């Protein structure tokens, strides 16, 4: 349990300025007069959302590669090669095994002298060093937003934050079923989880393409602090 300092006077000042007693309970959000966020891509099929996502990828400097579950390992290998190969860092995530990627991570790449580090909570800060040296970081997407071309990542012990930030290239594997219209659906999902008492992960990332900046004369530079390149691999039959 953390500490809270100076709260009472602070909040009382606010209440006084608002001309009333402090409100401690029973505040409910009103029914908002407009809810335009729900109309974006309303009624789209998964197929239509996928093409919206593809279109958006070209605007966010992100490569879009479609594949199937069977061909995923081969595709992943090709894409990694295109970006210059290892070292590679990945999440420790059930889905790598569900999607048949472990042979690639644990046998094929190492046999070809490609360094692969799977996040290992027990190794502590070593993970960060790996990630910092890695050329490619690979994660799955937990939810994917078609409108903005965004992958949503929920952190946990095996799903380190650094995998998506520190390597030069970031690759997200996106099962088609994770695609929703926009951030609205992701936010509503998280809100529901909180309402039923689930714990929010300590870090939720909404990542949209590689890192970039327009701070120098408004010229877009892709690749500043985070990844310089990004690719989405869509698994169309999952």
């Amino acid at each position, binding site marked *: 349990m953390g500490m809270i300092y100076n709260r009472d006077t602070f909040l009382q000042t606010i209440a006084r300025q608002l001309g009333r007693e402090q409100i401690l309970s029973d505040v409910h959000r009103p029914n908002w*007069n*407009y809810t*335009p966020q729900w109309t974006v891509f309303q009624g789209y099929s998964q197929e239509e959302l996928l093409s919206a996502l593809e279109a958006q990828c070209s605007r966010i400097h992100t490569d879009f590669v479609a594949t199937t579950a069977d061909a995923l390992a081969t595709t992943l290998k090709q894409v990694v090669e295109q970006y210059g190969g290892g070292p590679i860092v990945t999440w420790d995530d059930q889905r790598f095994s569900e999607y048949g990627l472990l042979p690639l991570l644990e046998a094929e790449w190492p046999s070809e002298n490609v360094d692969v580090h799977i996040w290992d909570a027990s190794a*502590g800060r070593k993970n960060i060093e790996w990630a910092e040296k890695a050329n490619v970081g690979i994660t799955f997407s937990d939810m994917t937003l078609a409108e903005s071309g965004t992958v949503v990542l929920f952190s946990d012990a095996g799903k380190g934050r650094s995998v998506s930030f520190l390597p030069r290239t970031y690759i997200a594997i996106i099962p088609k079923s994770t695609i929703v219209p926009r*951030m609205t659906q992701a936010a509503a999902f998280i809100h529901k989880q909180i309402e039923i008492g689930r714990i929010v992960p*300590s870090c939720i990332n*909404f990542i*949209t393409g590689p*890192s970039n900046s327009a701070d120098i004369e*408004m010229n877009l530079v892709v690749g500043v602090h985070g990844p310089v390149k990004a690719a989405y691999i869509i698994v169309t039959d999952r």
Partner: protein
Amino acid sequence: MAMKIGADSFHQRVEAGLHNSFMRGAVAGAQERLRTRRLDAAEELGNWEEWRALGEQIRQHTLLHLDYYLMQLSENVAKRGGHVFFAQTAEEANQYIREVVIKKNAKKIVKSKSMVTEEIHLNAMLEAAGCEVIETDLGEYILQIDDHDPPSHIVAPALHKNKEQIRDVFRKKLAYDKTEKPEELAAHARKMLRNEYLTADVGITGCNFAIAESGSITLVTNEGNADLVTALPKTQITVMGMERIVPTFEEMEVLVSLLTRSAVGQKLTSYITVLTGPRDEGDVDGPEEFHLVIVDNGRSSILGTEFQPVLQCIRCAACVNVCPVYRHIGGHSYGSIYSEPIGAVLSPLLGGYDDYKELPYASTLCAACTEACPVKIPLHELLLKHRQIIVEREGKAPISEKLAMKAFGLGAASSLLYKLGSKVAPNALQPFTTDERIVKGIGPLKAWTEIREFPAPAKERFRDWFREHRKERERDGNDL
């Protein structure tokens, strides 16, 4: 007042701004690009006005229940093991942060962009306490290594610098030996900063939106620097203005959508990061310790007044990007870290009329800001309110103007006086008139005619003509 920059008078700064032709070109170009991008992004949605109405309603609801939501926020942060410090003043905030930093024996601090830490002059305090403070947002980093040049735009702080200037600063301060290409400059900054993140003891961030229901904070960047600032150092301190809060993830989402579209015309920026408490049990990255500092610093005195809408602001700078005055004088002229138009409303409220009484007048009231604001703050009306207060309560208006306005009140409220006054005007101005034009006026007319011609009052006023015209029509048998 801490948010003040420079000691020059407003008019001196304006003079400097108007003579800085690179800055003006850069600002005008940026304005046009950002405006087009924002309009495209809004148009794509098709129902932008509904979005704005929703944004406004969310912000108003939150402000009206601010004590409740801050209570909920702080409870939830504490539940997750984070510490919350409520700071009434800038000094209190700085004092607390100083204590944390000293307790952690921190030598190196990395920061991601935050207006409120600029406002409370946090960096100066930390440096005085012996810490090395490194700004990591590229624009802020450039300004910092250039001997703390102040920011001139709330979203693009180094907008007033060109790439050659940046190259020279890099050469002088960072042993840089490449060209002025933005890619090369950015790559160098990346290299320099990477190591700083990895070796920093404390990370300090601002906060775009805190989420009450979960005790989370939301950070919005394109560079990804806020992620590194919060993932790598062992201690994280987040500083937020007390109004930067929403009830739930659902409202955060709407405001983030409004923010990124309005600020840079993007559907979302590259990194939207929602952090809750310190790292979880078993996590490797993320801070071991998390402190949230909630700052009032004059904000509560705006609540409950006619200026309350200004607290709806989500710091997107859309208003800055359409402002015709900012366009020509740039951000430094305002003498505040918050530039026109939001700054012209906010600075006198947070910093007082003594320092900022000119700002509300540095506006043509063209309402471009009001039209652009994604949360519907009536900015130009609030500027008018300031003018009213300066005249009526602060008594800071020039005497001559007061007299003229008094006369105006009398004249315009009485048709007789108006008619008389307007009848003698042509004769009164006769000595200054050449060829139906006034080229050299006196009083307020002097300021006008220094720049442009002024028409001499017509010999025959409209009303005189109309009287004749009516008679004529009657003579012609028209049924008037």
